[in-house]
């Protein structure tokens, strides 16, 4: 309220979260038409085909993994955590931006979140699905993954609750479930819209089934809004806890480069950083292809760029503190870890990381850069790569040099490491393609709400 009042004083339309002359009807039609139109656009088929091909690569490499075991990857002692853990942390971090946008920005009453929260939440779900694959594939005997579940087994064994890996299992499982709830609850009124607007009998039945008979009653809305707000309040500490626990997988151990107290906040900031980069990577092509520039406006891109810049600076602080503590601790192994990170066998990764996570994003200080869509897209891609490199350095470089020179070793990813990783990118993209074809990628009822609120302020 206060914010838009300020905008009125400035007489600026740039700050409006919605551009153009929309009515409740036209904004509904515009978003639902993307889903309900009869013909699937040709470029959708093309994009989905590429993604599907990569899903086949994933199935192929997972199939071969089940046949031959984890020996097909480059992992060995001492680097027993290779790409699988790097990818796990990378994917789960990406998911965090979706929850941040939908929950934290909701609690902070940031209205601009409305047109990006739906697909950001979908991105969270799909990223968590990709993340969840890796620890299971990494098990060596993936058929026994259910040993993590505390259930009364005939063996009489129970899981070890003092292990961060157990915490991780609970955190990721809770995160996936709560994200799914949050997403589905947000979808219910829109599913009802699609039910009432669908022409084909099958679509009407399918959307009607999922909408569960939603009819927009004022009593229902009251409980709905309260439940949604409470879910947001629950999801906010949850998202912080998930990446904190992921970081504890490392920080609780004694490996130099892992045993660091700065890890939890620095991991959470990194997760937000990479997640926003991924939201931009998805949003920029989507709005261009589906002509959604009125709904996902320059202001959204600008704000997301600012969040990226801010979280990127927290990440930079994390890198700085890691280096400082390595020196200040006076610990031989810590000091060697840092020198090895920067100038050792994998040193080029470290400098590439500094370039892509710290140097390049400084361009975002400039308004002209934040308003140049192609530049923003490139920077987002660079940050995606940078954040992947960060996890590679934490996992692989730390393990390759531990306390005894006799147990040093290097890690070189194999073809199967790459095939599995690229396969999950395909899975992520394929799920996104299915999502934008079948469900509204922008929350329709929240756009109507936004319209009503901005109308009220102008009159």
């Amino acid at each position, binding site marked *: 309220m206060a914010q838009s009042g300020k905008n009125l004083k400035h007489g600026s339309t740039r700050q409006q979260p919605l551009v153009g002359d929309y*009515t*409740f*009807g036209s904004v*509904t039609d515009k978003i639902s038409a993307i889903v309900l139109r009869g013909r699937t656009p040709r470029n959708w088929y093309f994009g989905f085909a590429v993604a599907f091909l990569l899903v086949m690569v994933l199935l192929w490499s997972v199939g071969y993994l089940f046949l031959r075991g984890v020996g097909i990857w480059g992992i060995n002692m001492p680097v027993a955590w290779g790409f699988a853990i790097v990818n796990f942390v990378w994917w789960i971090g990406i998911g965090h931006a979706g929850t941040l946008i939908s929950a934290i920005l909701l609690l902070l009453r940031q209205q601009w979140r409305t047109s990006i929260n739906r697909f950001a939440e979908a991105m969270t779900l799909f990223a968590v699905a990709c993340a969840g694959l890796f620890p299971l594939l990494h098990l060596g005997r993936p058929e026994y993954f259910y040993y993590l579940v*505390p259930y009364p087994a005939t063996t*009489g*064994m*129970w899981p*070890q*609750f*003092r292990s*961060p890996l157990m*915490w991780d299992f*609970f*955190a990721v*499982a*809770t995160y996936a*479930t*709560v994200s799914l*709830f*949050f997403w*589905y*609850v947000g979808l219910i*009124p829109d599913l009802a*819209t699609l*039910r*009432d*607007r669908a022409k084909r009998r099958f679509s009407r039945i399918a959307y*009607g*089934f999922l909408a*569960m*008979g*939603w*009819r*927009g*009653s*004022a*009593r*229902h*809305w*009251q*409980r*709905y*809004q*309260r*439940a949604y707000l*409470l*879910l947001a309040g*629950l*999801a906010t*500490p*949850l998202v912080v*806890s998930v990446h904190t*626990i992921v970081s*504890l997988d490392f920080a609780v151990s004694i490996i130099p480069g892992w045993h660091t107290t700065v890890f939890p906040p620095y991991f959470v900031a990194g997760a937000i950083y990479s997640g926003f980069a991924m939201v931009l990577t998805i949003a920029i092509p989507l709005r261009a292809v589906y002509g959604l520039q009125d709904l996902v406006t320059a202001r959204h891109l600008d704000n997301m760029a600012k969040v990226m810049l801010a979280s990127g600076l927290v990440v930079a602080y994390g890198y700085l503190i890691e280096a400082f503590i390595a020196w200040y601790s006076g610990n031989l192994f810590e000091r060697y870890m840092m020198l090895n990170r920067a100038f050792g066998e994998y040193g080029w990764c470290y400098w590439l990381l500094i370039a892509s996570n710290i140097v390049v994003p400084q361009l975002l200080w400039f308004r002209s850069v934040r308003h140049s869509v192609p530049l923003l897209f490139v920077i987002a891609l660079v940050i995606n790569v940078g954040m992947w490199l960060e996890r590679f350095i934490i996992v692989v470089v730390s393990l390759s040099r531990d306390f005894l020179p006799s147990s040093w070793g290097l890690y070189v990813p194999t073809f199967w490491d790459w095939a599995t990783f690229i396969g999950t990118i395909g899975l992520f993209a394929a799920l996104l393609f299915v999502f934008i074809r079948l469900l509204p990628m922008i929350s329709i*009822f*929240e756009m*109507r*709400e936004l319209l*009503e609120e901005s109308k009220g302020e102008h009159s």
Partner: protein
Amino acid sequence: MADAQLYGLLAEFRDPEALVDGARRVREAGYRRFDAFSPMPIEGLAEAIGFTRTRMPLVVLIGGLIGAVAGYLLQYWVSVIAYPLNVGGRPLNSWPYFIPVTFETTVLVAALFGVLGMLALNGLPRPHHPLFAVEQFAHATRDGFFLCIETADARFAGDETRRLLVEAGATEVFDVPA
């Protein structure tokens, strides 16, 4: 007699403000069994129809407490009673280590109660409702603002109720078959 086959009268309003205003007047006229329908939540509408308290926060609180207690007890039982592991004489009930999982189960059960509680209190899923028989009601999920007075209301009286709705600002009034 016609009332016996009716579920109620459905009135359409022009915009959100008219609906809130209309709902307030219907309530002031003494009606209680009526509901408003809109394509998005409208501030003040629930108050206007006399629905001010929801038990949602209590439901979520109960869920959270159950999750917290159950999560901690599970870990306590596993680590102290069912499968005690003596690691250098450290305490079996090592509570700081049990906090992360307790936190996760708290959030999980609270969220479960929040979603299922919201649906249960709303009486959803409910695939069919008499209102869906009115063709115009499909706009309630697009750009239509409706108010429905049920025949079950003690004050319901066919034409008089219809007149009240028109006076309250309805643009059109529909019969809802039972």
